[in-house]
C-alpha cells in the first residue's frame, strides 16, 4: 500500500469533520473519495497533505509517517496535491509555474548566480525548462507558456496546476475536485489526463462530485458521509451498496430532479 490513513480524525471546535477514517491507497491505482457536500473530503485532503494537523490518527506514505510534517517536507517525500479553488502563482507565466515545480528535484543555484556570466543558461536551468515544456505538452498548454497563469481559463488553470504538481515527480498525486466547473468536453479530456498520469506510474487519489467520471476512471472508491467512511470498493460494489444509495446517490438523484 502506498498511502495508509489510520484512524484519522479532525474536528473544528465541536464539529467532527472527519472521524476515525481508515483507508489505504494501492500503488498504481486511481482511488476516489466521494460523498455529499460536507462529508469531510476536503478536510481529509487537507490533513493528508499537511495543510491541517489531525486531531488524532496518522497518515503513512510507503511506510513513512507524514503526520506532523510541513507540506513542503511531504512534497519532498512524494505527495503533492491540487486545490479545489486552484492555487497558482498568478503573476508568473505558465512556464514559470511548472518550472517552480522542479524546485525540490534540483539543487540550489544561489551561489552559482554570483559567479555565472550573465545571459548564459546553466545546464540545470536548461534541463528544468525542457522538463517543464514536456509537461506543458502533456497537459496541452505548450502554446500558452508565456501567458500569465492568472489569465488562463479555469479548465486550463486546473491543467496547469496538475502540470506543476507533476513537475515535482510525485509518487502520489492528490486531486481535489479536478473537474469542478468544467464542461463535458473538458471533463473527458481531464479523465484522459488522469488515466495517463496513472499509466505513467503515479498513483492518483481524488475527490470528486462528478459521479460518472468517478465511476468511469476509479479503481477503488471510498465513500464518506458525515465524516465517516460508510463504504469502500470498486465502482460496481459502491454503486450497489444500500448505505451509499441512501446517503449519497439517493440525495444526488433527488437534487437532480
Amino acid at each position: 500500500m502506498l498511502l495508509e490513513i489510520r484512524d484519522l480524525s479532525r474536528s473544528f471546535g465541536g464539529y467532527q469533520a472527519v472521524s476515525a477514517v481508515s483507508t489505504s491507497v494501492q500503488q498504481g491505482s486511481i482511488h476516489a473519495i466521494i460523498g455529499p457536500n460536507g462529508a469531510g473530503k476536503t478536510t481529509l485532503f487537507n490533513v493528508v497533505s499537511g495543510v491541517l494537523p489531525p486531531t488524532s490518527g496518522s497518515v503513512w506514505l510507503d511506510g513513512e509517517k507524514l503526520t506532523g510534517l510541513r507540506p513542503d517536507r511531504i512534497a519532498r517525500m512524494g505527495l503533492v496535491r491540487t486545490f479545489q479553488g486552484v492555487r497558482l502563482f498568478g503573476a508568473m507565466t505558465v512556464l514559470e509555474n511548472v518550472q517552480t515545480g522542479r524546485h525540490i528535484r534540483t539543487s540550489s543555484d544561489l551561489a552559482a548566480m554570483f559567479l555565472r556570466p550573465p545571459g548564459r543558461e546553466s545546464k540545470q536551468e536548461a534541463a528544468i525548462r525542457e522538463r517543464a515544456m514536456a509537461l506543458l505538452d502533456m497537459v496541452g498548454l505548450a502554446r500558452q507558456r508565456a501567458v500569465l497563469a492568472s489569465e488562463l481559463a479555469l479548465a486550463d488553470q486546473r491543467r496547469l496546476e496538475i502540470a506543476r504538481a507533476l513537475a515535482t515527480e510525485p509518487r502520489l498525486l492528490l486531486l481535489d475536485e479536478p473537474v469542478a466547473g468544467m464542461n463535458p468536453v473538458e471533463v473527458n479530456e481531464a479523465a484522459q489526463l488522469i488515466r495517463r498520469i496513472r499509466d505513467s506510474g503515479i498513483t492518483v487519489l481524488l475527490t470528486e462530485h462528478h459521479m460518472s467520471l468517478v465511476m468511469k476512471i476509479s479503481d477503488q472508491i471510498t465513500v464518506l458521509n458525515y465524516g465517516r467512511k460508510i463504504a469502500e470498493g470498486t465502482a460496481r460494489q459502491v454503486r450497489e451498496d444500500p448505505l451509499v444509495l441512501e446517503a449519497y446517490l439517493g440525495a444526488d438523484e433527488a437534487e437532480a430532479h
Partner: protein
Amino acid sequence: MLDQYTQSVLIFMGINVILALSLYLPISAGLLSLGQGGFMSIGAYTSAYLTLNLAWPFALALAAGSLAAGIVGLLVGFPALRIKGVYLIILTMGFGEIVRVFFLNFEPTGAASGLGGIPGHTTLPLLSVIAVAVLTDFWQLRRSRIGRAIAAVREDELAAEITGISLTRVKVTVFAIGGALAGLGGGLYAHYASFIDPAQFGFQRSAEIFVMVLLGGMGNFFGATLGAFTVTLLPELLRFLQDWRMTFFGTLLVVMMIVRPWGIVGARR
C-alpha cells in the same frame, strides 16, 4: 573629469541603488521591511571601526560589515516567519530603533557623538563596479531557481509550500541577503561621508529607502533602481525651489501614488 558636486550625486545614486535593492529583495518575497536603516548602520559602523581602529584593508572591512548585517538579517528573518503584513512592518521598525539606540549608547563607536575621520575609500569607479555587479546578480535572479521560489512565496505561500518550497529557507534567505546588501551600502556610505552617527540611520533613512522602491515600483528590480535614481536626483534638480524643495518633492510623491500607485516601472496588478 567630473566636478565634485556631480561626483557626489553619482556616488549617492550608486549607494541608494544598493540600498533600494536591499529592500526590494524581501519585498519580492512579500515581506515589507521598514528597518533597512538598521542593517545599513551595522554595515557602516562595523566597516568603519575596522578600517579606522584596526587598520583593516577597505575591501575586507566592507565585506565584514556586510556579513555582520547579513547575520543580523538572518536572525531578524526568523521572527518574520510567523509575522505578516503590518505587524512585520512594525517588527522591522522596532528592529531599526533597537540598532539606532544601541549605537547611540555604544562607546567603542563613539556613541552619540558618532565616528569621524573615516578614510574616504569609496570612489566613483569602485562604486560603479560594485553597483553593476549587484545589478547583474538581480538580473540573474529573475530567471533562476531561487528567483522563482521567491516569487512563488510572494504569490501564494500555501501553494509554494505544497510545491515543496520551504517558507523558512526562502524568507530567512531574503532577509539575510537583503541585510547584507544594506550593510554593504552602509559601509560604502561610511567611507564616503567620513563621519557617521546613529541619527543618519534612523527611521527616516528606512522610510527613504522604502520610498525609492515604492516610487520605482515593487514589481521588478528595474523599478527599485529607477526609484533610487529618482529619489537621489529629484531633490537636486529641485534645488532652485530652495526652501520649498522638499514640499514639492512630497507633493510629487502624493500625486504619484494617486496616478501610478504601482510605481514608475511595473505593470498594474
